[in-house]
């Protein structure tokens, strides 16, 4: 049994405004270290909320979140940030790169902010793996969407995180570019032993994962191990029909 890197325990979360509607309604789920897990569900089912709570970007109303064994649901800023930047990497749909910094500076930024000496040779290796060698001095604005997502991935990997959270990482990309990014996420799991937790609504993307959990109306409603596109699509249809 591999140890869990992220443990979500009976987490509820509702947003002010949407009266009574719970974005997460008592969710408990664990994510094993060094595995690739996809989170699926219809739009508005609470996927992003789950990811944010699990990653310590947002605080749940109740319940606990353990990140690499450390309870983070009770932590406050800036402690939360310190924990996050040591253990976690992010790859989101909107890349979230600093436009005024070069690719290379973007990749090293989290380590610099953490006040540690950046591991440059590792960063160069990561850049090579994502296929961006030679683009170090470009600015994100000069890159294609797929290239930018690869910079974001390189940035996440350069800090040797235990887990990478990805929210619709292929959402803004075309089919083949999306596939390249998924392959890189897969490689991060297989090659570097990083856990990846990815939110997606695309069965083809989810099929790259080791395991898929399904959310509907803020609850976990199903789970699939060793998914294929067909199995995921069928399960999604079932979930959406509920």
């Amino acid at each position, binding site marked *: 049994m591999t140890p869990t890197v992220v443990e979500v325990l009976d987490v509820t979360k509702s947003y002010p405004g949407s009266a009574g509607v719970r974005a997460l309604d008592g969710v408990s789920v664990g994510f094993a270290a060094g595995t690739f897990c996809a989170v699926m569900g219809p739009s508005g089912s609470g996927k992003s909320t789950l990811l*944010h709570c699990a990653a310590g*970007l*947002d605080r749940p109303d109740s319940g606990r979140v353990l990140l690499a064994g450390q309870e983070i649901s009770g932590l406050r800023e800036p402690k939360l*940030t*310190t924990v996050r930047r040591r253990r976690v990497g992010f790859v989101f749909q*909107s890349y979230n790169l*600093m436009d005024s910094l070069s690719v290379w500076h973007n990749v090293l930024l989290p380590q610099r902010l953490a006040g540690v000496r950046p591991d440059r040779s590792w960063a160069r290796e990561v850049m090579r793996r994502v296929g961006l060698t030679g683009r170090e001095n470009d600015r994100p*604005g000069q890159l294609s969407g797929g290239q930018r997502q690869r910079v974001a991935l390189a*940035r996440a990997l350069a800090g040797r995180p235990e887990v990478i959270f990805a929210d619709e990482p292929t959402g803004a990309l075309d089919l083949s570019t999306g596939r390249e990014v998924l392959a890189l996420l897969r490689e991060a799991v297989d090659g570097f032993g990083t856990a990846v937790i990815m939110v997606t609504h695309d069965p083809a993307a989810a099929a790259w994962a080791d395991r898929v959990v399904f959310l509907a109306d803020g609850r976990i409603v199903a789970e699939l191990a060793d998914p294929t596109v067909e199995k995921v699509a069928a399960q999604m249809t079932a979930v959406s029909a509920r």
Partner: protein
Amino acid sequence: MMRLALGSLRRHRGAYLGTFLAAFLAVALLAGAGLLLFSVLTAKPPADRFAATAVVLSGDREVTLQTVRKKKDKVKTKTKSERLTGAGTLPVDLAGRIAAVPGVADAVADYAFPVAFPVRGEDGAPVVGHGWASAALTPYTLEQGRPPAAGEVVVDADLAARGGLSTGDQVPITTRTGVRTLRVSGVAAPAGRDGLPAQGAVFLADREVPAVSGLAGPTAIGVLAAPGADRAALAAAVRAVAGDATLLTGADKVRGDLPGALPDYIGPISIFGFTIGITAFAAVFVLTGTVALGVRQRLRELALLRTAGATPGQLRRLLGLESVVLAAVAAVPAMPLGVVVARVVAARFRALGAVPAQFTVGVNVLVLGGAAAAGVLVTFVAARIAGRRAVRIAPTQALVETATAPRGGLLVRVLAALVTAGGAVAVLSFVPLGGPLGMGMSFVSSALLLCAVAALGPVLVRALTAVVGRLTRVAGVTGWLAGTVARVESRRVAAVAVPLVLMFAVNATMLLNSSLLGRLTADEHAARNAPATGQVTGPAGLPLDAVGDLAALPGVTGAAATLPTRAIVAQGGKPEDHPSQGLFLAGREAAIDLGVREGRIGGDDTFAASSYLVRQYGWRVGDEVPIWLADGYQVTLRLAAVYERSRGFGDMALPARLVAAHDPRGLVAAVALRYDGDVASRIRERWPALRVTPTAEAVRAGDAQNQQGAWELMVVISLGFTAIAVVNTFAIATAARRREYADLRLAGATAGQVHRMVTGEAAITVAVGLLLGAAVAGIVVGAFSTAQDGVFRLIVDPVTYAGMLAGVAALGMVAGALPIRLVLRRRALPAVADGR
């Protein structure tokens, strides 16, 4: 199109707030300044002392020159005139001849002359003396007592109340012919009130008036019509007899009154003219910058519209329409605010004495509408210019994270900068900054330099941030980030720095220049009076004849009496009036040192002039110069000397006797004495009313004091407006970067690190702004200072300078660092990380 524009406005409510605020303030200021100028231009005399008359004949009230130029067969006549500060007189026998004209019931010879009285009228109004016959012109009627006989006076009810006077009291009055103590024989008032607004009146026996006033004839003749007489026919008949006297009817009759008795709007007109100049510049400058910043921040949206099929032309129209809607909406609340601004400023100016106490702000719809239209127009033009390149943005830019407008236009920028900087250099080198235009022109040149800075902003800022940004690296990773971001985003830094440049340059220039002038004036005053042992002043001024007695006191070795006045000289057919002094010198030692550069002061029919005036008019010692005195009397005097120390003194030193005879006030303001021994105590003994001050206290002309106050108020307004512009620009820039800060947080920055980076960026922006601002101010102040006395100064007044630096820096830092705290606190991290 309209729907699209309105929709866009609604969606970007936050982003438009900045432009809205800028347009709102700009329109309010323009409206305020416009109303003030309009109100002084249309100010009516508060009362007509000639209300009962049909026609008024007046002596000269202005000097008018005509130049006739022949060009081939065309004859061009140019008429230029300058107002007198005194009143010209009419022949003594004219009133008698007018009285004989058919239809004339009576023709009253009106003598009007300023009187120093124990009390002044309402709001410090001057007291004017007349013969009792003049009472019929208004008319004033006796409330108690009887008409004045010789040695008696009738006072108006308002003065009587203020001075606690009643029939039988003794009251001293001072005119240029001396001090007299008269007995109050009665109290008179115009119908329905105690006195006329803006002038107190005292009436003497008609027989005594010529002697007391020192006037050669009446200053005006009031013609009372016989009952049933036809006014037009009467005026025509009077005109036939009047000779070259000016004939006034209707609302113009008041112009026959003593100029000093009417509120004077010449000073306020120039002050408000200048105010509107500064305001208009600052408003346009700030508004343009804000609109451009706003458009730049919406490039992505524009690109999205392009992908949706909008043509550049449509986008241009969208931007134009949007800006018009925005500015028009902003103008609605701005106009009432403008009225408030005008009222507040007017009240303050009244309190300072920079405008007459009777001055009121009239609300004129056309002026308000004009200000609103100007605001809308400026916003529209600025949006169109800012959008010129932006609308050609490629649709593909919509897909890119940060849309960038096509660059270029560098040539245009450089050209614009060259033209404006060239203009500034031209103004600084060719306009005599040492003269009365100096302050205004130094403002014009700093405005031009500011335009150059704005045009070249991004280029200048890139160069400066490269240097300044390097310095911030010592502050660790956040400093490094701030420096790098500032260098890359030099356009944005420029946009935010320019209001800081404006704030520092305009206000520092105004403050430093006026402080320099003040200091030079005080220095020259001190140097002028250095030879004197003491200064003698009277409560209301001294008649010139009294000076002889002072000078003759044993122990007095030198005396110099000064009578402030204004005199007119002409150049190229244009009469121009200049502050001057009547100067009386006595004794074997000099009691005043004017810093004579050439020639010698004194001698019959001569005068001395300041080196500024001599340069201005191209005079040489020995030249015969025609000069018009305060009452329009023309003399020709020989230029005998040129002096340097004219600040706070005047540009001409005229024979005191002439000034005493031709300036209606005609009193000595101060006598500088040089003496040994106990002269001071002997003076106090013999003339208890006189004051002897040992040190030369700065007896600044009242005028200069008022101007100074007005000037300071303008700096306050300008400081306020530019400060709001600074805060506004910073806020717009910060609001647009919310996303960037969230990205930083996602990359692992703590909130503290983001704050530090933002503070670092603000510090860079402030440093850049201050460097550029100091450069602009330095050029202008340096040139101004060199023009004053040949000394090049940059800082002038270290306290003011440091205060401005610190104030602008503090404001910039607060404005730069504060909005981000609000932004970061409000937004939950994930919401922004999603790009929501």
